[in-house]
C-alpha cells in the first residue's frame, strides 16, 4: 500500500512539471487559437540555457532558472515573429500555422544539435543537494519539494498576472475577440508577443526543472514532452488554464502508476489511448474549454 502512495506522490511531482510545460502550450492556443508545435523546442532551449549558465558561467541555480525563463521567453517571441505573424497578417488557415511552427521547431532543434554536438549534457554533480525526508513512511526528496514549490509559485504568478492585472485582462480580452480588443485601444500584436513571452518563460522553467530531475539535457528532449503536452491539454481542454493544471496532474499520476505496475511501453499506449477517447467523447476536454464549431451535421 505504501508503494501505491509513494507512486501517487511521485506522480504528483511529475504531473506538476508536465502542467508547467503544458500551461504555456495551452495559453497560446487559448489566446491565438493556434497550436505552437515549437513549444517543445523552446522548452529544450530553456534547459540548455539553464545548463550553460551553471556550467559555463558558474552561476548559482536560481540565476540559471531566471536566465532560462528569460531566454526561452525571448525565443518564444521569435517563434511568433517568424512562424506565426507573417501568416496572421494574411489570414492563413490553422494548417499553415501548424506547418510553420513545425518548421521553426526543426530549426531550433537543429541549432541546438549543432551547438551541443549531439551530446547529452548533465548538470554538474552537487548542483542540487541530494537530501531525503521521511514523511508518514513516504520518501520525499528535497528536489521534489523544490519542484512542487516552484510549480506552485509559477502557477500562482501566472494566475495572478492573468486575473489580477491589467495585462492579464488585456490578454483575456484578446483571447475572446481581437477586434473588440483593438477597438478598446489594446495593441493586439503586443499582447500576442506578451503571451508568447509568458508561454516561453514557463517552458524555460519546465526545461530547467526537468533537466535537473532527469539529469539529462539534449537537443531531442523537447519532442516527447511536446507529444505528452498534447495529451495534457486535450485532457484538460484546449486553451484552458485550469484544465492544463488538472490534466498535467492526471497525466503524471496515470503515467507513474502505469509504469510502476504495468510497463513503460504500455503506459504510452494507455495515455495516448486516453487522449484519443477524450477527443471522441468530449473534444472540449474534461474541464471544457474552447470548442470549435463543426458544421457537417445539424447543430
Amino acid at each position, binding site marked *: 500500500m505504501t508503494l501505491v502512495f509513494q507512486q501517487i506522490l511521485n506522480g504528483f511531482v511529475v504531473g506538476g512539471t508536465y502542467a508547467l510545460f503544458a500551461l504555456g502550450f495551452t495559453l497560446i492556443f487559448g489566446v491565438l487559437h493556434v497550436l505552437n508545435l515549437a513549444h517543445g523546442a523552446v522548452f529544450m532551449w530553456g534547459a540548455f540555457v539553464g545548463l550553460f549558465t551553471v556550467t559555463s558561467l558558474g552561476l548559482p541555480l536560481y540565476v540559471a532558472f531566471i536566465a532560462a525563463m528569460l531566454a526561452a521567453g525571448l525565443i518564444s517571441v521569435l517563434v511568433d515573429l517568424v512562424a506565426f505573424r507573417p501568416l496572421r497578417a494574411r489570414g492563413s488557415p490553422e494548417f499553415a500555422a501548424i506547418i510553420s511552427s513545425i518548421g521553426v521547431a526543426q530549426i531550433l532543434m537543429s541549432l541546438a544539435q549543432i551547438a551541443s554536438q549531439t551530446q547529452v549534457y548533465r548538470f554538474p554533480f552537487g548542483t542540487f543537494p541530494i537530501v531525503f525526508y521521511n514523511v508518514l513512511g513516504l520518501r520525499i526528496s528535497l528536489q521534489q519539494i523544490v519542484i512542487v514549490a516552484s510549480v506552485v509559485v509559477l502557477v500562482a504568478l501566472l494566475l495572478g498576472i492573468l486575473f489580477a492585472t*491589467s495585462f492579464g*485582462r*488585456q490578454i*483575456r*480580452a484578446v483571447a*475572446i*475577440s481581437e*477586434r*473588440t*480588443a*483593438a*477597438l*478598446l*485601444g*489594446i*495593441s*493586439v500584436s503586443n499582447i500576442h508577443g506578451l503571451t508568447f513571452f509568458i508561454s516561453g518563460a514557463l517552458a524555460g522553467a519546465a526545461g530547467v526543472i526537468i533537466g535537473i530531475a532527469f539529469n539529462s539535457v539534449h537537443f531531442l528532449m523537447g519532442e516527447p514532452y511536446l507529444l505528452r503536452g498534447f495529451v495534457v491539454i486535450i485532457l484538460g481542454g484546449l486553451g484552458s488554464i485550469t484544465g492544463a493544471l488538472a490534466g498535467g496532474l492526471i497525466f503524471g499520476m496515470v503515467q507513474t502508476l502505469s509504469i510502476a505496475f504495468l510497463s513503460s511501453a504500455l503506459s504510452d499506449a494507455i495515455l495516448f489511448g486516453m487522449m484519443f477517447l477524450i477527443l471522441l467523447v468530449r473534444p472540449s476536454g474534461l474541464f471544457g474549454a474552447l470548442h470549435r464549431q463543426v458544421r457537417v451535421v445539424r447543430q
Partner: protein
Amino acid sequence: MLEVTDLATAYDGITALRGVTLRVPTGSMVAIVGPNGAGKSTLLNTISGVLRPHAGTVRFDGADVTRLPAHKVARLGLLQVPEGRQILGPLSVEENLLLGRLARGARAADGTADDLDAVFSLFPILAERRRQEGGSLSGGQQQMLAIGRALMGRPRLLMLDEPSLGLSPIMARQVFDALATLKARGQTILLVEQNARRALASTDFAYVLEQGRIVQEGPSAALASDPRIISHYLPETDLSTS
C-alpha cells in the same frame, strides 16, 4: 472634429463605400441613416481603423488618422461602440469597464474612480451587476455596458453602431435617453442607425447612406419631415398610415 473626405472601401470583394464625405463638428450629434447593407458599419469600421480604405482620408482633430491601426485610433479618443455590442462575455461587468479605460492612454491619468462612478450613475443597473459576467446581462444591459465601456476611455468622439439593434422598444428608449444625457453634457456623437425616425429625432444633423454613397444630408429635423427620406426605407409608403 471629424472630417471624412472621399472615402472608398472594398470589403469581401464588394465596393462597400464610394466617395463618402462627412463632417462631425465638436459638440454635435450626427446621424448616419440608411437601409441594411448600405455600408454604415463599413463606414464606422473604416473610420476606426478596422478596415483599410483604398481611397480618401479621415482626419480627426486636424490629424490624419486614415491608415492608423484600430488601437491607435481608439487611443486618440475616437471610440466606437460596435454593432451587436461585442461585450467580452466571460469577463465581469467591472472588468469590461476597466478595459475601456485603456483607450484613455496618455490623455489623462487621473480620476479612475470618478469614471466608474460616472458610468454607474448613468447606468445604475451596471453598478448592481458589476461582479456578474458581461455575457449574462440582457441585450439592453449589454448595450449600456458597451456604451459605459467606451465612456471609460473618455471619448472625444463617440461612435455608435446600431445601438437599438435587437432591443425591445422600452430598452431602446432607455439607451437613447442616455445618449441625450451625454449630448447635453457636450459629448460629440456619431450615430449609425437603421431606425431612421428615432435617429433623426435625437440628432442635429444627418447623412443618408445608400449603396455606399451619401445620397442626402441636412439638419435632422428637415430630413425627418422630408417624405423622400421615408421612401428610402419603404418605397411608395402611404405616409398617412405611418
